[in-house]
């Protein structure tokens, strides 16, 4: 489990914007939208997995959500909006948006 | 509002004097609920505060009254509310909040008679201990007690000064006689009235810790909405105002709350003494009883009896060192009060056998008369 301490916000930001997270182990270059999960804040409630309209997310063996089907992500951001813990974010692919 | 530059002689009811004192002290916020015998204070505030550019609001109950008062103070205004026993009981939780969050505010309690609804238009002094211990949790409190319309003016001004200086709730404990008696009062020129304002932070907002001890025990207080974003809570908190359960931080906060006032005990000895030269017997009284006591002592002196009066104007913190002097210099003291012995317990506590402590108690809703006190004095001398 990640650090729960008061540096949480900094950790989030570093990981979310840095290259340390590879969602679901997939090849980032292939996906249009990037779904990132910050396990340090995630409480495994399962809401993001259950209500993703396109089945992008599944629950991993460790109980955390996992990006299993990245190509299906439409960037609707429902997972992000409904997350009670600010632990998931959809980085929209600018290129796709413009296309 | 009066803006006189010379002393002004006016006929004032105690409640009016209180309102004038509050306005002179800079009070610009009042929130309260009607209750006998304190309603006059609210009514007069509703008329005078808007004229002074202040805010008056009648709330839905006394809990709301003091809640809004604390809110007004957190918003940067000098704020007060007034009530009587039943409302004072309702306010206790928020007095505790104001002590914990260190929000300056003034609460006037015009004591009525008896427990519960009791005697709404009659005097007693039954809330002395409640004013000290009524709110939950261990915390200091400041309580002043006027005995005349002038003192109601003067002590209300000073109550605001104390509240602002110590960031503490301050209670003005008046009784029905003091609040309703109309008498001639000489009000000082406004410019001569000493006014204290809360210390505001001078550091930039990003450096501000709302509960950091600057060395005086009293942290500078920013108002909400002036660029200092901070957190205020009734939970035990650290120097940044955030909740904490850490033993060291809890201990530090609690000790600071007590020490900020106890370090100044020597400045908080507010009393008047009369005829104390050679007094074998000292009458100790406060509130309207002190008026009867003064008359009684004069009558006794006319008879050649060695009697003096110690009138307490500050009840809490209890003026141990002042009272001690009189306990040491007198053979007997008589504590006269309109209850079954509340302040007399404190006198006995500090007495420790120095002299004999007698009590004169009355709880029938009538004032203690000078002749009753004189009779007690004569009995004590016999």
């Amino acid at each position: 489990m990640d650090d729960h301490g008061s540096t949480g916000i900094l950790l989030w930001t570093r990981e979310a914007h840095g290259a340390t997270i590879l969602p679901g182990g997939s090849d980032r270059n292939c996906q249009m939208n990037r779904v990132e999960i910050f396990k340090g804040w995630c409480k495994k409630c399962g809401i993001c997995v259950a209500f993703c309209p396109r089945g992008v997310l599944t629950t991993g063996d460790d109980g955390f959500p996992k990006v299993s089907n990245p190509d299906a992500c439409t960037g609707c951001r429902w997972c992000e909006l409904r997350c009670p813990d600010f632990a998931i974010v959809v980085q929209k692919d600018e290129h796709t948006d413009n296309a | 509002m009066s803006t006189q530059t010379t002393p002004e002689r006016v006929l004032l009811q105690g409640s009016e004097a209180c309102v004038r004192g509050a306005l002179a002290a800079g009070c610009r916020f009042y929130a309260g609920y009607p209750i006998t015998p304190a309603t006059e204070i609210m009514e007069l505030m509703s008329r005078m505060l808007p004229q002074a550019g202040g805010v008056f609001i009648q709330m839905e109950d006394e809990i709301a009254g003091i809640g809004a008062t604390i809110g007004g103070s957190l918003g940067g205004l000098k704020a007060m509310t007034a009530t009587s026993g039943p409302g004072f009981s309702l306010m206790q939780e928020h007095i505790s909040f104001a002590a914990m969050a260190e929000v300056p505010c003034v609460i006037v309690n015009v004591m009525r008679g008896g427990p519960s609804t009791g005697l709404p238009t009659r005097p007693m002094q039954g809330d002395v201990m409640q004013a000290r211990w009524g709110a939950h949790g261990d915390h200091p409190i400041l309580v002043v007690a006027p005995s005349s319309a002038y003192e109601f003016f003067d002590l209300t001004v000073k109550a605001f000064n104390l509240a602002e200086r110590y960031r503490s709730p301050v209670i003005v404990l008046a009784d029905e006689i003091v609040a309703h008696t109309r008498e001639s009062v000489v009000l000082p020129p406004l410019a001569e009235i000493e006014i204290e304002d809360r210390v505001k932070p001078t550091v930039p907002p990003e450096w501000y810790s709302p509960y950091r001890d600057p060395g005086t025990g009293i942290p500078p207080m920013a108002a909400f909405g002036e660029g200092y974003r901070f957190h205020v809570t009734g939970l035990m908190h650290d120097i940044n105002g955030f909740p904490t359960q850490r033993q060291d931080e809890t201990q530090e906060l609690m000790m600071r709350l007590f020490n900020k006032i106890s370090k100044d005990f020597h400045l908080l000895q507010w009393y008047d003494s009369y005829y104390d030269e050679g007094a074998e017997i000292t009458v100790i009284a406060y509130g309207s009883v002190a008026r009867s006591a003064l008359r009684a002592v004069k009558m006794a002196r006319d008879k050649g009896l060695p009697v003096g009066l110690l009138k307490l104007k500050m009840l809490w913190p209890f003026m141990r060192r002042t009272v001690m002097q009189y306990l040491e210099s007198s053979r007997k003291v008589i504590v006269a009060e309109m209850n079954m012995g509340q302040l007399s317990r404190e006198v006995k506590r500090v007495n420790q056998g120095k002299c004999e402590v007698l009590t004169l108690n009355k709880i029938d809703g009538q004032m203690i008369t000078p002749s009753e006190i004189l009779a007690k004095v004569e009995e004590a001398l016999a």
Partner: protein
Amino acid sequence: MKQTPQLIHRYLRSSKRFPHVWCPGCGIGILLGALVRAIDEGGYSKDDIMLVSGIGCSGRLPVYLDFNTLHTTHGRALTFATGIKLAKPHLKVIVVMGDGDASSIGGNHLIHSARRNIDITTIIVNNQIYGMTGGQASPTTPFGLATASSPYGHLEHPFDISKLVEAAGAVFVARSTVYHTKALDRVIGQALKKKGFSVVEVMAPCVTHFGKMTGMGSPVDMMRWQKDNAVPFEKAREMSAEELQNKIVTGVLVDIGKPTFHEEHARIWREVK
């Protein structure tokens, strides 16, 4: 709409411990996000937001946010907020309360704030139970439900908080669920813009207690229940009382105009000065 990391960076207090205090799947966390997004969308300065809470799970919300924040006593948040609003009228005052906080111990303050039309936005997180103290019946707990304090079934009938504040004179009343997050963002934004006493009743799952008492199950099941049982206000008008049983009527229920307390008070200032 800004990305979550940007919002976190801008609005959450970096000195606070995260993850926050609430249970997994708690609706208050979702509300926290909605509130931040609505404030951001509204373009308010952080210095001008005054966030006040009472006691209970919802009472812990303000401390996480980098605004002017005040955590008051149980049920009395509106009284403190009233004082602050009158002392500092430029502040956008937002009060967050739970259902017990707002409609039980603070019920009197709620209706009188609505009657007075004080310019405050009140968000009531309704999870139909006392969460912080361990699952006792609240004024919005359904009739018959066995709770920690009604082991033989709740004998009382629940308040409809939105109807209560409507009757008391609130100028804006909306109800939403945390499942309908975009709608929630929207109505909070509308409530913030509204002058006068505005109320947003947010149906939020308490997984730990309400979920346990009702046997609703997981956070996901509770969210699904919200999804299946929410009825838009417009549609609800055409439904019978029977059909509306156990439904959540959502949307903007009241939106009227009325002078605020502060406007009236300012008029008195002008007249008597």
